[in-house]
């Protein structure tokens, strides 16, 4: 049986994803960028609500019951977002945190109304068209397939890492660990954003699958980090393979850049073992 706070946490988790994926789906760079800023604010709301749940002696989980509707226009996406934001308002408590969150939400609603005031902003959405074409570049089918697999796999992994480290960060009292978790979360936000925008360009934008508690409730921390380092190594190999397979200089350079970032994640994770 879910408590009111559990329900609020789940709705905030879903709202964070709705804002994030709206940002990925909309092509207009200004709107995309602004929405992404709001999505990071929503993630902080989620983090603060999680801390509140723990302080009250409760627990939170990452259950979800949402779908990403394949809208055809920017305004359809924005209308849906408005509805989600309005829906969650009644569930906030009456305290300082809730007041802060509500004023953020109200400003986001205002921004969405400003966007919809101009019909010029109502653009066609191609993020769900399944065309799997990389803009004006002519990639061979096997390269498109490799890119598709990589983006689907890694977008899930980045989402998983964000939530797993968030779960651990909320429970640690070790300042070093807290900082490392924050760095890793920030890095994964950037990777998820990069991969999400690429999925949208390919027309295959989709939510990462839901996390089961066996994934984020960690019983053996040391082992988890050692395994995590091995996983980062595997991600590096995947990145390198993809970089080699994609015969496009711009994309190859991007995957090399991601590859070097994974290398530093390993160094960050080693700090957690000290």
């Amino acid at each position: 049986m879910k408590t009111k706070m559990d329900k609020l946490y789940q709705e905030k988790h879903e709202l964070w994803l709705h804002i994030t994926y709206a940002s990925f789906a909309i092509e207009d760079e200004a709107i995309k960028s602004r929405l992404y800023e709001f999505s990071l604010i929503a993630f902080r709301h989620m983090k603060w609500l999680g801390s509140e749940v723990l302080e009250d002696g409760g627990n939170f989980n990452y259950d979800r019951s949402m779908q990403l509707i394949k809208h055809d226009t920017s305004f359809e996406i924005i209308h849906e977002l408005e509805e989600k934001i309005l829906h969650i308002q009644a569930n906030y408590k009456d305290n300082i945190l809730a007041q802060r969150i509500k004023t953020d939400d109200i400003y986001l609603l205002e921004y969405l109304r400003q966007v919809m005031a101009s019909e010029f902003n109502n653009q066609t959405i191609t993020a769900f068209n399944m065309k799997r074409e990389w803009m004006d570049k002519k990639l061979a089918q096997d390269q498109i397939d490799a890119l598709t697999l990589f983006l689907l796999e890694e977008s899930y992994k980045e989402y998983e890492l964000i939530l797993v480290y968030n779960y651990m960060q909320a429970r640690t009292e070790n300042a070093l660990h807290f900082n490392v978790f924050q760095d890793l979360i920030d890095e994964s936000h950037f990777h998820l954003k990069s991969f999400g925008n690429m999925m949208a360009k390919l027309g295959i934008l989709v939510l990462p699958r839901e996390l089961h508690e066996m994934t984020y409730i960690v019983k053996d921390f040391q082992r988890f980090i050692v395994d995590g380092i091995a996983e980062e190594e595997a991600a590096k190999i995947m990145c390198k393979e993809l970089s080699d397979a994609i015969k496009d200089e711009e994309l190859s350079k991007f995957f090399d850049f991601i590859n070097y970032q994974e290398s530093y994640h390993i160094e960050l994770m080693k700090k957690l073992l000290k």
Partner: protein
Amino acid sequence: MFEDVKMPEGMSPEVLEHLMYPKNYGKLETPNGVGVALDEKTKEYVIFYIILDESIIKDVKFATNGCQDTVVIGSMFTDMIMNNDLEYANGAIQKMNDKLGNTSAQQQVCADIVFSAFTASLQNYKNIQNGLDEELHLFKMKESCEVVGEENENKNG
């Protein structure tokens, strides 16, 4: 009976659909069988939830932290066995295993972990029927995805 059994070969539209929108993914609120198959080396797991009515699989869901092959096979397999009986499910495992003989060793390991989780959920169902207080049944995998991957690398290298 199993003419329609399909395997994840390449990036067909069907495989892409299972990958992007896995069927029967998640948890069941009131299962009467829960099974987990765990690869201890990689910590990859598959968890199966079933609602069994006599021998009919009335509902089934699965979840995993595993790779895309695991997701696609789990999605296809649960889709096949939903609302079918256990005989059909066992036949489907056999048929899928036969077909997997033609695919990569890694895909076979992914299929094994899916089928083992399903078998563990049946064992949990039986154990509960026999009066055992068991939250879930756990199978530890003998073959690891990691080992198979390394073997493949060595062969290719």
